[in-house]
């Protein structure tokens, strides 16, 4: 109670400190929730540290993780280190519930649930050998089936096939993704495991290690099997060697969060720096308050208070404010976190401010407060001891200590600002990257045709008719379709042969796209040479292909690829045209080679339509659904998005990183500036008599402005120097996250220095001019 009463006498200071504690607690709670639930907490499966992903990796191609083929899976599933292993194949299907509804499906081998250690919350796993069954996600069961308790055994129509509902899987099962709505059985035949299928990499392999077996042991066994593959596929040896192929096992959690880890670690570093900064700020505030209370503390000591009891009293004031601030901050984090756009992060559905997060955030804030409280108490004791050795202007050591604290705050803010500026510049440059196509006013959506009902001619007729009807919609400029959209999650990367290729370079490979005529016109990809595909490039016409400029330069340097032949699969094709280079998977780095083939000569059952519109493309979303229904009422339309949405996804991680660090930098600047202002105001307040004296001795008001400003300049300069050193370390450590900007970019550093100089000048101006207006006669009468 005495602490509250004492604090109520300094409401502004109390409010400032409590607010700083609240902001710190909120940041710690939000960042703590992200880091704890995404990076640290085990996956929600029993003994999840034994779970692995197994991927093909191609070291020469910067392909981090590539799926496995069925024969690959067959090679590795029997490894001794694995207790069990399963394969997953993602797909989509049409679920008929009155009207067709596109759902995300995972085809899984029978060991799937056993590997993860999951049991259905309703019903059972698939029966042995069962093919016509389905497991529902808890979300699908609740949203589409009204959480019917008798769902097990019911029949649902998936792609017009009746499937028995075997059970419902718990919500925490986000494998292969949190969007998965149905799981259906995947059974292989001996033919699936033929070596000829090794190029068909479309399986995600998961495995559970035997208890006590380290992942390194599993990797060693995988390596042994991998080496044997070379002997079985002599025709692929050159490709596998050139692409530095290997198979790697990764801990499931680490693999899931690998891409998000750098952003989260930067976020954590930024949060810890802001916490340090806040601590320095509060320490500065309480040092000033303790100076003002020296007489009171002396009286307490004279009346018999022990050093320990005074320390406890001082610490309890800080703790009271910290407790109040932490409560408000954590509550704010609890309210704010669900409103943050975390969809780009793995395990986002698990992130929440729970008991553990609250405990961590509160513990850090309270420990910080206790540290600050006892540091102040220790300082007050030292001050009392050494008071006799100095003159009456006892504020000087405090001012110096506060100056050190403010310099530290400026340093932290400079480090964060420099890092944030570089991440923002990275984001800006990524946004400005020339993609090779025009993403403005382009609506996209996906349509999938069931293979059983759509023979090849019918499929091609469907897509042709769809294109014609889309182009007929008022407001549509042109329409086409492609097997994979730039920056969409799916990408098809394949190898091909070039007629007469001397083989000195590596095996030709490219992003492969099957497109309808008018694709290049619709996407505004320029035709550089030759001709584009037309409706005449059908099955009965000579097989043709197109390449982009990146492929032309790489595989046909100093010559035209027009008229040259490539072999894709078993078919030789003549190159008829060259289009401009496009970026399809990454905005950073050089454009990669692309190979285009005409849809009417290919066997595709799923395409993305691209529709260029005159205005806002989403305005026509309803019209395109109507058109698809007109062509086939049973075909659901899904993934209705603009091309800009896909581009937005491509820069979501850089945007998140830039936003997080920039926001931290903004908080840091605010705290540093208020710290600097408070320091200068304190100096002016405690040195009024000195200012008056100096003026009495002939100092002009301008010299007094300079006298106070010197503090600001020294503190800011020291902080900037330290901060720049910190920024060099931080920006170099995040070099991999930067694009188009050097970690030592002099312009960024110059702007940061100029900005801080300006901010410091603004923060120092008011106290300095207040000093200049001091009436020396009045100041000299002050005691």
């Amino acid at each position, binding site marked *: 109670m005495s602490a509250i009463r004492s604090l109520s006498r300094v409401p502004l200071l109390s409010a400032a400190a409590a607010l700083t504690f609240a902001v710190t607690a909120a940041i710690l709670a939000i960042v703590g929730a992200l880091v704890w639930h995404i990076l640290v907490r085990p996956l929600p499966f029993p003994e999840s540290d034994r779970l692995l992903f197994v991927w093909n990796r191609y070291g020469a191609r910067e392909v981090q993780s590539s799926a496995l083929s069925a024969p690959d899976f067959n090679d590795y599933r029997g490894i001794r280190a694995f207790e069990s292993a399963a394969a997953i194949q993602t797909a989509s299907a049409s679920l008929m519930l009155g009207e067709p509804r596109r759902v995300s499906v995972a085809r899984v081998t029978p060991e799937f649930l056993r590997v993860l250690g999951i049991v259905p919350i309703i019903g059972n796993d698939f029966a042995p050998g069962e093919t016509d069954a389905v497991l529902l996600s808890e979300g699908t069961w609740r949203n589409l089936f009204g959480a019917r308790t008798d769902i097990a055994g019911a029949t649902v129509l998936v792609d017009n096939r009746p499937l028995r509902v075997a059970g419902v899987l718990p919500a925490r099962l986000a494998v292969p993704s949190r969007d998965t709505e149905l799981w259906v059985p995947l059974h292989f035949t001996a033919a699936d495991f033929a070596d000829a299928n090794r190029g068909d990499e479309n399986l995600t392999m998961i495995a559970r290690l035997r208890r006590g077996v380290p992942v390194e042991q599993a990797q060693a066994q995988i390596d042994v099997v991998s080496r044997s593959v070379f002997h079985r596929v002599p025709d692929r040896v050159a490709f596998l060697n050139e692409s530095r192929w290997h198979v790697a096992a990764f801990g499931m959690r680490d693999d899931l969060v690998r891409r998000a880890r750098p952003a989260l670690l930067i976020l954590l570093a930024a949060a810890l720096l802001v916490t340090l900064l806040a601590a320095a700020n509060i320490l500065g505030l309480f040092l000033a308050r303790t100076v003002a209370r020296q007489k009171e503390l002396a009286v307490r000591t004279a009346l018999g208070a022990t050093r320990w009891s005074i320390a406890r009293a001082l610490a309890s004031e800080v703790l009271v404010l910290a407790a109040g601030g932490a409560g408000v901050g954590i509550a704010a984090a609890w309210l704010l976190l669900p409103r943050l756009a975390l969809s780009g992060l793995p395990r986002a559905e698990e992130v929440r401010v729970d008991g553990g997060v609250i405990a961590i955030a509160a513990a850090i804030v309270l420990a910080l407060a206790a540290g600050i409280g006892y540091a102040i108490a220790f300082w007050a004791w030292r001050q009392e001891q050494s008071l006799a050795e100095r*003159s009456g202007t006892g504020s000087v050591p405090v001012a110096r200590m506060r100056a050190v604290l403010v310099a530290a705050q400026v340093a932290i803010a400079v480090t964060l600002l420099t890092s944030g500026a570089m991440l923002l510049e990275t984001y800006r440059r990524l946004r400005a990257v020339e993609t090779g196509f025009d993403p403005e006013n382009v609506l996209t959506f996906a349509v999938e045709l069931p293979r059983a009902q759509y023979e090849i001619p019918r499929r091609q007729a469907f897509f042709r008719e769809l294109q014609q009807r889309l182009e007929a919609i008022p407001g549509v400029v042109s329409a086409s379709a492609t097997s994979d959209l730039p920056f969409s999650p799916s990408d098809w990367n394949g190898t091909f042969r070039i007629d007469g290729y001397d083989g000195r370079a590596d095996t030709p490979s490219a992003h492969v796209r099957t497109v309808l005529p008018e694709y290049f016109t619709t996407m505004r990809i320029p035709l550089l040479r030759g001709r584009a595909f037309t409706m005449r490039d059908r099955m009965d016409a000579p097989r043709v292909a197109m390449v982009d400029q990146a492929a032309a330069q790489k595989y046909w340097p100093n010559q035209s690829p027009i008229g040259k032949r490539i072999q894709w699969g078993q078919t030789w094709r003549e190159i008829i045209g060259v289009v401009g280079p496009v970026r399809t998977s990454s905005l950073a780095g050089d454009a990669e080679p692309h190979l285009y083939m005409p849809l009417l000569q290919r066997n595709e059952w799923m395409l993305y339509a691209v529709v260029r519109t005159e205005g806002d493309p989403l305005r026509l979303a309803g019209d395109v659904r109507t058109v698809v229904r007109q062509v086939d009422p049973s075909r659901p339309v899904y993934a209705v998005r603009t091309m800009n949405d896909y581009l937005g996804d491509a820069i979501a991680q850089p945007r998140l990183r830039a936003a997080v660090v920039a926001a931290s930098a903004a908080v840091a600047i605010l705290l540093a500036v208020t710290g600097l202002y408070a320091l200068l105001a304190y100096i002016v307040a405690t040195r009024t008599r000195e200012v008056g004296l100096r003026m009495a001795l002939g100092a002009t008001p301008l010299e007094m402005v300079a006298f106070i400003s010197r503090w600001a300049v020294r503190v800011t300069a020291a902080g900037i120097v330290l901060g720049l050193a910190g920024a060099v370390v931080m920006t170099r450590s995040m070099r991999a996250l930067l694009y188009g900007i050097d970690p030592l970019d002099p312009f960024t550093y110059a702007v940061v220095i100029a900005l801080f100089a300006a901010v410091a000048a603004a923060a120092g101006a008011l106290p300095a001019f207040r000093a200049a207006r001091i009436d020396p006669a009045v100041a000299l009468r002050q005691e």
Partner: protein
Amino acid sequence: MPPLIHLEGLTKVFYTDEIETHALDGVHLAIAEGEYVSIAGPSGCGKSTLLSILGLLHAPTSGEYTLNGTPVARLSTLERARIRNKEVGFIFQSFNLIGDLTVEENVALPLTYRKTPTAERKDRVQRALERVGMLHRIKHYPGQLSGGQQQRVAVARAIVGDPSIVLADEPTGNLDSRNGESVMTLLRDLNRAGATICMVTHDPRYAKNADRTIHLFDGRVVEEERMPAEEHELRESGFEVG
């Protein structure tokens, strides 16, 4: 020879919250060069206000003030600061030394604001400290000195710039009688060496040290008391006058 300080009908009115306070009300005063004047009077009579106007810390509301031949009543803040630095030395009751500056740096302050070259500054500081007997403490900090020693350093600071007049505001107020006497002797010696001194004190023992005592009451000069000629002669001959 014109007086060093000449005040003509000087008034000072302070305005606060609709209240007018007439601190000085038509003060006429002349102080000759080399004179030692003390200003006495009860609390609130305007002594400190008069001293702050003499020291150019405040401007008068009306009236004329001529310092060393220059009219200074209506100068800007900047001009007052410049003249104050050159013409006025201050000694305060509470010494007003700056705690984190050494004795040398404290004494040098007026010269610093005058932008005196370093070598000359050091030389003048040493001479000033020598005059007050504090040269041996030149590198000390104020906190390491006794009250009497601190006031001696303050006197050195007041005279280091060779001002036209030294203004002393209750210079013995914070000192015991022994140190008080010592500081008074120091001022007397400075006066004998040619310094013009104007001292505010309410202690009649110390007021008698001056050649002339001016009594203020309600912002007016109500009485002037000159030291008898024989006492003055005795003192000039080096005898203490009780």
